[in-house]
């Protein structure tokens, strides 16, 4: 075992896969000798050189779109988008090129690539360095969307993504980069895409979350436990495909579900999950599925008081869970 941060887990996954497979390469803004603005690519340029760790111009459409072309030719690109707030600039190659290449060619061309996107708030980044935006990708057939919350999952999922044969959106919550650390195995391991993970078993209600919110939910669960509310915490990890079975099994057991995410309420991932739970486990539900999310405003206003107001946090989760438990 070794103790690593979330960030180090991501760097290790890339380094190990690049050693393992000559086809893997990295491109993005400042990813080269500088090692990325958050240091996620630290050391890669030294070890693998500028041919495989490519500093691009400020060109999000190229960063993704050239990745699509390289993937089509048999490479395994990892394209980095510095902030999810700017993924909008590379939106066409993500949702129209990468996601649809296999389908539109009847399987003749494929697009095995990973698009790493740094996202998330609670870091004082203001309106353009805090967005999550998973719902931009969540509704796109052809994409896999991953959103890990622990170093183990981050490393294991990123490796699965690199080895897989599909375009993967890999969402890295920047608050987790240095704030979360854990022991992970020394040896090579992967985590399967498409599977949720029960991070805390429980019986009273099911709380579904991912990324930073997963941690807030775990904190809340500890507090709730003190008053006899035993929450089962499901870490979604994969948003597309998402693990219906694990979620439904849990909700069938507890009869109550709360979904927590950082993105605004309307049009967020939570709506879909709530809808599916209701469709498929209606008779098991003792209460309507609840959501706790950011409010319907552009994420995330800068002034600290407003950012705090915006973010779902432990206190809000505890309150919402208590109400649901009492329903």
């Amino acid at each position: 075992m070794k103790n690593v941060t979330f960030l180090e887990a991501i760097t290790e996954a890339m380094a190990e896969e690049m050693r393992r497979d000559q086809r893997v390469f990295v491109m993005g803004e400042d990813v080269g000798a500088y090692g990325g603005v958050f240091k996620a690519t630290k050391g890669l340029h030294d070890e693998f050189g500028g041919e495989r760790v490519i500093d691009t111009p400020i060109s999000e459409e190229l960063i993704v779109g050239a990745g699509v072309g390289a993937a089509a030719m048999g490479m395994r690109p990892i394209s980095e988008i510095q902030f999810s707030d700017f993924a909008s600039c590379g939106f066409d190659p993500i949702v129209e090129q990468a996601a649809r290449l296999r389908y539109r060619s009847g399987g003749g061309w494929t697009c095995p690539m990973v698009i790493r996107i740094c996202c998330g708030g609670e870091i004082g980044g203001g309106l353009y360095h805090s967005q999550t935006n998973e719902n931009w990708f969540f509704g796109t057939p052809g994409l896999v969307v991953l959103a890990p919350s622990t170093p183990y999952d981050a490393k294991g999922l990123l490796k699965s993504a690199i080895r897989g044969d599909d375009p993967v959106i890999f969402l890295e919550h920047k608050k987790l980069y240095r704030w979360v650390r854990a022991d992970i195995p020394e040896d090579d391991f992967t985590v399967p895409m498409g599977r949720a993970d029960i991070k805390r078993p429980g019986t009273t209600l099911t709380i579904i979350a991912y990324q930073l919110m997963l941690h807030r939910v775990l904190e809340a669960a500890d507090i709730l436990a003190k008053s006899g509310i035993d929450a089962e915490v499901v870490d979604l990890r994969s948003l597309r495909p998402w693990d219906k079975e694990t979620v439904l099994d849990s909700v069938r057991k507890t009869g109550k579900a709360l979904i927590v995410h950082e993105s605004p309420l309307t049009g967020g991932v939570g709506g879909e999950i709530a809808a599916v739970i209701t469709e498929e486990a209606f008779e098991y539900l003792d209460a309507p599925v609840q959501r706790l999310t950011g409010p319907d405003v552009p994420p995330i206003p800068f002034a600290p008081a407003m950012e705090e107001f915006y973010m779902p946090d432990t206190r809000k989760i505890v309150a919402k869970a208590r109400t649901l438990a009492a329903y």
Partner: protein
Amino acid sequence: MAEAKAKRQTDPGMSASKEDQKALYYHLIRARRFDERCRRLFKQGRFPGTYFSAVGQEAAAVGAAFGLGPDDVIAPSHRELGAYITKGMPLAALMRQLFARADSPDKGKSHPCHFGYPEINLLTPASTMTAQVVVGTGMALALRMQKKPNVVLAFIGEGGTSRGAFHEALNFAGIHDLPIIYVCLNNLWAESVPAYRQSRITKFSDRAKAYGFAGFTIDGNDLLTVYQTVREAIERARAGSGPTLIECLTYRWYGHSEIDPANYRSADELESWKKRDPVALYERHLDETGIMSQAEREKIITQVDAEIEEAITLAEASPHPEAKEALDDVYSFSPAANFPARAQPTPPGGLT
């Protein structure tokens, strides 16, 4: 709009051997006759969707593609039919796509007029104008990384050069001296919008000046000029000297698609370009040089027409896709099957 202004810059036939020049005629006339046949089929309601004719632009498409080897790549836009078949896409495969059959290269999925064929390294493009230029640039990056001696030919209309994607791609290719040739077919119109409303520049090859590599504007209706200019660019690219932007001045004879009457352009403009019919021009060259007689050409036409009819017969015999094939080829895996019976336990070492 002015006519093609550029003069042939290279000695005709200097590098195209006699045999090549004969072969070029075959490809040129095949592109023309196939295209006209497709138009007729569409007008007869023999296939659904739409059809983008490239008649009038065959010299640019054929001349550019004739220099390519099997491992070279084409990143197509939507009006270079001659390039795809010159590169080796079987007519029946094209016809199957138009007819949206199950054994079409796209299995009936895409759009009738955006052709791809992985077997010959022809990218299957989106309809998104200019996306093929970005994706093609990434293909050139892969060739470079794989240390292959091959090149990418990326096609684009003059209209498509206005998109930002064009800028990002060419800028990147310039920095890395990628083995790619951008072939811009300037046919003076993008749907109803004239080239002078696409940009204030009059030579679209001037766009290359913003990226630090060479740009040429040539007579796109002169088959040998196109062939030779592109071949030289390919040689430079193979030698590691980086990209080239080649603007081929040409003209589409028909509407943007078969339902466009194209009455935004003057009859005079069309007439002046029909006088510069790339097929007639090349036939004149063959006559003048005596490389190929009219009788020989007629034999080729007969052969080509037979090929085309055979392709139609083959395609019409192909099955339609089953409705449920709509669910195939979204992922490498079946999403349902990927779901686990049970979530995995929390990893050793705890969470935080």
